[in-house]
């Protein structure tokens, strides 16, 4: 266990340069970018003097190196600063939008895992048969369908033609989120106050975006599961289990899948980046008030601190998930020692 603790500490320390590098790239990109927060806030016709004064106030007239160092100093104190466009702390803006994104990505991930792992295992079991080919074809095709287009088509089919599911927002017009907003995770909030009508409404609104995200990523997981299952199914203990007369289905879905799951778990850490990118696009398609929409809105407004804050949070999520995945990996597989 001491090895594990040491490993965790090293990993946490290693995320610092990663976040720093990404932050530096984005900081530089934002400053080189045409336009600035003051002009976008006041419009192009404000008097020169007002613009200059405002820039002075926000510290935009300082040399870039000074701005950079003072921003890093701020971040080192866990302070993301204040928005340059709205009177709002960056942490408040992010805390407001982050739960929506996490709720969406978590539900999407669950759908992906269920679909991907079971279809992949089934395909491996039926290797080189019709079912295998069909599932692999589905995997390739779904991977090539852009998540935003899949979202639009699902909106068209289920929202417009069949008219059974809503196509925008987290709640319907009659459900007031303010009556139950505590954690920001609406599924949990509605459960906490036992408002099941509102919960149903939240779930209905979550269905299409979560399936859009889940379906898109399922292709990768089918592929991963299938490849790992094929390796596992060839191993000696599977042959031994067959010889002992254990039912085939039990061998495939219990014995083999359990062992094939470890590499899948590690890959999950890497897929978080794809999940986040998919979430941004899905949020745009479904008018989902999450981090992706926040990022895009603020890029148009050139709101430097908020954009940097969003990037830091995304980088931390990616680093955090891969850390957790590695720790779980180390715990469930006793052969791995650091």
């Amino acid at each position, binding site marked *: 266990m001491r090895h594990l603790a040491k490993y965790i500490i090293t990993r946490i320390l290693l995320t610092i*340069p*990663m976040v720093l*590098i*990404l932050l530096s*790239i*984005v900081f530089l*990109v*934002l400053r*080189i*970018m*045409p336009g600035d927060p003051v002009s976008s806030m006041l419009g192009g016709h404000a008097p020169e003097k007002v613009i200059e004064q405002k820039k002075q106030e926000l510290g935009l007239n300082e040399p870039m190196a000074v701005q950079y160092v003072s921003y890093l100093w701020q971040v080192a104190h866990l302070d993301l600063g204040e928005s340059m466009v709205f009177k709002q702390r960056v942490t408040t803006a992010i805390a407001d939008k982050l739960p929506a994104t996490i709720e969406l990505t978590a539900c999407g991930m669950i759908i992906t895992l269920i679909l991907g792992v079971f279809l992949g295992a089934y395909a491996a079991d039926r290797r080189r048969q019709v079912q295998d*080919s069909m599932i692999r074809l589905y995997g*390739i*095709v779904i*991977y*090539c*369908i*852009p998540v*935003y*287009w899949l979202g*639009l*088509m699902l*909106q*068209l089919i289920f929202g*417009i*033609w069949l008219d059974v599911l809503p*196509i925008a927002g987290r709640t319907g017009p009659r459900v007031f989120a303010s009556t139950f907003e505590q954690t920001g995770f609406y599924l949990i909030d509605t459960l906490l106050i036992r408002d099941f009508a509102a919960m149903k409404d939240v779930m209905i609104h979550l269905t299409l975006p979560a399936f859009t995200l889940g379906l898109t990523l399922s292709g990768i997981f089918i592929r991963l599961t*299938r*490849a790992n299952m*094929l390796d596992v199914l060839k191993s000696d203990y599977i042959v031994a289990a067959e010889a002992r007369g254990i039912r085939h289905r039990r061998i495939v879905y219990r014995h083999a899948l359990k062992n094939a799951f470890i590499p899948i778990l590690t890959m999950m850490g*890497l897929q978080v*980046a*794809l999940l*986040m*990118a998919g979430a*941004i*696009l899905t949020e*745009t*398609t479904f008018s989902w008030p999450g981090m992706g929409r926040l*990022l*895009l809105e603020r*890029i148009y407004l050139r709101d430097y601190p908020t*954009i940097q804050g969003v*990037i830091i949070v*995304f*980088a931390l999520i*990616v*680093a955090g998930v*891969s850390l957790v995945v590695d720790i779980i990996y180390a715990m469930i597989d006793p052969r791995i020692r650091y």
Partner: protein
Amino acid sequence: MNYSPASALARVFSSFTSMGKKYGVEWWILVAGAAIVLGIVFMAAFPDIFTPFNPYDQAAGPQLAPPGGAHLMGTDNLRRDVWARIVFGSQTILRVSVLAAIISSMIGISMGLLSGFSGGILDRILSLIMDSVYVFPGLILAIAFAAMFGPGVINITLAVSVIYIPTYFRLVRGQTLSIKQELYVEAARAIGASSTTILWEYIFPNVIATTVVVFTLNVADAIMIEAALTYLGLGLPPSVVDWGMDLAMGKKFLPSGQWWLITFPGLMISLLALGFTMLGEGLAEILNPRLLER
């Protein structure tokens, strides 16, 4: 044996043809992918064969006409022909995605070679930067770069190319590290070959073959990222004909049921990405016999 990029490519192509029959399904995936890609490239090269309409013509037909008759895929709200916009839009997406893949492969491969071959502090720093960018969602970086460069075909190409550099870097660096240890490299060093010779004559040809597959899959991904950026309203001025922008425009007419405005551009993006993916998958199977047992 004389190793050079040309002979390496020749070997790729000869194995390509001779192993065709051996691979069954994978071969057909490759052929289907190549057919899709060549078809769309042909469409982009000779658009006038495919449509009599001008993609900018705001009097091509009635407003928001459904598919059928003179307008194969209907017309949009500005009375433009959707099929003509599809045909001409293929030029933009192909140009951006292929060029972006070329740029990122050139930068990524040369940096990977240099980093893996020289080692030391340079290798450490480059690896750290590349790894940090690699694990971060590429789309978010592309969004930031697209906003920085402003709208334009070259600008969006650069924004897309930035995010794939680490992919090539990691692949090539890893390969360079292992090839560096090979006996034939040691032999070359023993007979007095210079570092430049070893890098370009011995390591580079062996690395380049594996990047072919990555390049093809990279183009497929770049297609989806390009369309994603323009769908989000970044990267291209409205005067350019582009599938992603048409998709964003068609989105406004989704609630009123004008399905053809979103269906066809999205279908084409998927088809083009599918073509390059199948090409890459097929190539991967054929170039890597170890995968055959799967």
